[in-house]
């Protein structure tokens, strides 16, 4: 209140002045830093091969862009031209850090909330502790130097922000980054885990959404496994992981009979029917008892689940066929010039019912399916009826047209004959009159 009562010109100019002081200081500091001697860059830029790589890569590096330099990670004295003095023991120079030291090295800054706030207040600072809970972190702790550390995914000298499309951890690049180790059969050999995840993922519905539609919200490796705390989800938590996006399906499944049964079977809930990395687009054939059925993996002829699976597929197929039949007749009516946009719009309710029923199969209850399919079927039948009456109307119009044209031509002919007769009569009258 007080501020607004002050003369605005005076208070504003004073505020502006004080706001400018840190900005000017920052500019002066950056100019000074830019002019500061950096013997690491000076020497390594003159070198060839891998030793010049750090300088080349640092051009796009997010740390370099924020004013950090080699010594902030490697220590040493960049003000010294002499190599021995610059990398001397007393400077704390650490050269190439060992894998086991990397999480701590990065964590020195990235786990320090106060420090990180200066650069990005919204950035998380729990990466290091999360990493220690990951399979990678635990193996590293047990002495395995082959496992992934920070630099394996983010790179070392060319670290880019996650939102940078060139970053190794940008959504479109994550699977390839993980695959650089996990798809390498030789590298994975000693861990005795499959190495086909990347190949399977590339065929999945998720990969199609990510790569073909460029939908960055589509899941890639880290969306299910976590990133810094990467680990395969346990059997009990699979539904929770999938449920992050497929929440309706997950909640229906949790309330279904299969939740308990799958638990007893120690089966991995969602993945039992949908698989994991190579999730193909779900189809109606996954229901029922056909070749592509997922139900027949457990259910056999004669049991109630087998019959329910068969019935559910039949109901969905009927709905689908009914929509196709209605669409087809409405298309025919529309092509003939009839106005059917209203029943076509209403048919969307039937399509919605079909979509809902495909979600409701996760209740594994035919009664639940009926609740949406019955009204949906009524709508589809009504739309079909509208299409049929539009075609009947068309036929009525054509018959009506034929009848009216006959009458019109007949009338025109009659008038023509009458005109001729009148003209003949007047011609005949003329000489008589004359």
């Amino acid at each position, binding site marked *: 209140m007080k501020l607004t009562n002050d003369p605005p010109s005076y208070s504003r100019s004073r505020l502006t002045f004080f706001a400018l002081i840190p900005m000017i200081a920052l500019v002066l500091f950056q100019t000074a830093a830019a002019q500061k001697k950096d013997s690491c860059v000076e020497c390594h830029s003159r070198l060839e091969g891998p030793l010049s790589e750090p300088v080349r890569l640092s051009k796009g590096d997010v740390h370099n862009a924020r004013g950090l330099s080699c010594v902030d990670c490697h220590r040493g004295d960049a003000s010294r031209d002499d190599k021995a003095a610059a990398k001397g023991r007393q400077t704390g120079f650490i050269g190439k850090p060992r894998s086991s030291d990397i999480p701590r090295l990065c964590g020195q800054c990235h786990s320090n909330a106060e420090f990180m706030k200066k650069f990005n207040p919204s950035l998380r600072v729990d990466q290091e502790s999360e990493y220690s809970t990951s399979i990678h972190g635990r193996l590293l702790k047990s002495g395995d130097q082959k496992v992934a550390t920070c630099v394996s995914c983010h790179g070392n000298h060319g670290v880019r922000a996650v939102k940078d499309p060139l970053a190794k951890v940008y959504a479109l690049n994550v699977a390839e980054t993980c695959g650089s180790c996990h798809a390498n059969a030789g590298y994975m050999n000693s861990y005795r885990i499959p190495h086909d995840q990347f190949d399977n993922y590339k065929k999945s519905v998720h990969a199609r959404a990510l790569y073909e539609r460029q939908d960055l919200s589509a899941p890639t490796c880290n969306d299910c496994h976590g990133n810094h705390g990467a680990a395969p989800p346990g059997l009990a938590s699979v539904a929770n992981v999938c449920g992050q996006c497929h929440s309706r399906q997950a909640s229906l499944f949790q309330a279904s009979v299969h939740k308990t049964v799958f638990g007893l079977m120690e089966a991995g809930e969602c993945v039992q029917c949908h698989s994991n990395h190579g999730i193909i687009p779900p189809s109606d054939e996954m229901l029922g008892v056909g070749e592509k059925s997922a139900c027949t993996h457990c259910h056999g002829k004669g049991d109630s689940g087998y019959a329910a699976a068969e019935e559910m597929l039949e109901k969905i197929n009927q709905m689908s066929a009914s929509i196709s039949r209605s669409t087809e007749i409405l298309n025919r009516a529309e092509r003939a*010039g009839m106005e059917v946009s209203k029943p076509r719009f209403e048919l969307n309710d039937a399509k919605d019912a079909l979509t809902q029923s495909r979600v409701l199969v996760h209740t594994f209850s035919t009664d639940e399916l009926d609740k949406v399919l019955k009204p949906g079927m009524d709508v589809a039948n009504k739309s079909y009826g509208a299409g049929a009456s539009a075609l009947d109307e068309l036929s009525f119009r054509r018959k009506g047209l034929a009848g009216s044209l006959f009458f*019109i*031509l007949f009338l*025109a002919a009659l008038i023509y004959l009458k*005109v001729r007769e009148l003209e003949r009569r007047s011609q005949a009258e003329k000489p008589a009159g004359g």
Partner: protein
Amino acid sequence: MKVEPVTLWLDDRLGIGSIAQLARKKEIPIHRHSIWYYFGGMTLFLFGVQVVTGILLLLYYRPSAETAFESVQFIVTEVQFGWLIRSVHSWSANLLIATLFIHMFSVYFMRAYRRPREVTWLSGVFLLLLAVGFGFSGYLLPWNKLAFFATKVGTEIAGVIPLIGKPMLRFLRGGEDVTGATLTRFFGFHVAVLPAISTVILAVHLALVQLHGMSVPPGLEGKNLRKMKFFPGFLMRDLIGWILAIGVLAALAALFPWELGEKADAFAPAPAGIKPEWYFLFMFETLKLLPPKILSFDGEVLGILGFAAGGLVWFILPFLDKHERTRRPVFTVIGVIVVLFIVTLTIVGFVS
């Protein structure tokens, strides 16, 4: 015995006897170009169809952005024979413009605008402008996507005219953009303003036709031409044409119902290849073909001004071609060029 006193009573008060006598006396010259006389009557008949079907549509049509499309949809789907009335109204409007053009060019080539029919010509050209105005305003009324964007483009073109363009655009649109305000405005023009003016001008035009009788082409003037009585010979022939026109309209409405399309959405992208009604196509194509800059002037502005100047010359034609009896091949050549220009660019517009 019972009928006569009634006709006498009416004749006494309304003078219908003199009208009947005029009709009996009126004669139509018969020659090789007589066929063109029928197009004026045909245009008048189609105008009548427009009035009748328009009034019927008015019973259900609701002129607002929220209800216009739905009310037309209701007319063509729910109202008994609503589809027929709406389709006949749309088709008849197009046929009317076509017969009007034919009528106008037949008058031009037969040089029927010569003294003393100058005012008949002026009123006729004015009626053509009114008909085009009816077409432009009526096109928007169903409030569908195509009409919405065609109106947007059409009014934008009007807005390019120097000085009066911007105010005219705001007047036509009822604001800066095509909105519900434009629709109600166009509805007002279509059902009140234009019909009121048309009725007066049409009355003048018809009265002048009766006053001066049918014009004979200059080459046939003075020759001993055969004559046909207006009643019943000519009128009954006219009647045959009108009955056949009803047949054509019924066939078009039943076999090619006028499309309604999708409801207009101001936020939707303009549909590809948007075009105005066919009778505006030649102007639209010309403006498209003109280079953006002609010398230091804007090509589109020059094009619009060119059409305006051409229209003005066309309007005052009777005062430019004053020679009454002699043949004037220059005017025939100009007419042929104008027809070829309109036909060619209309075809180009359809094909492109």
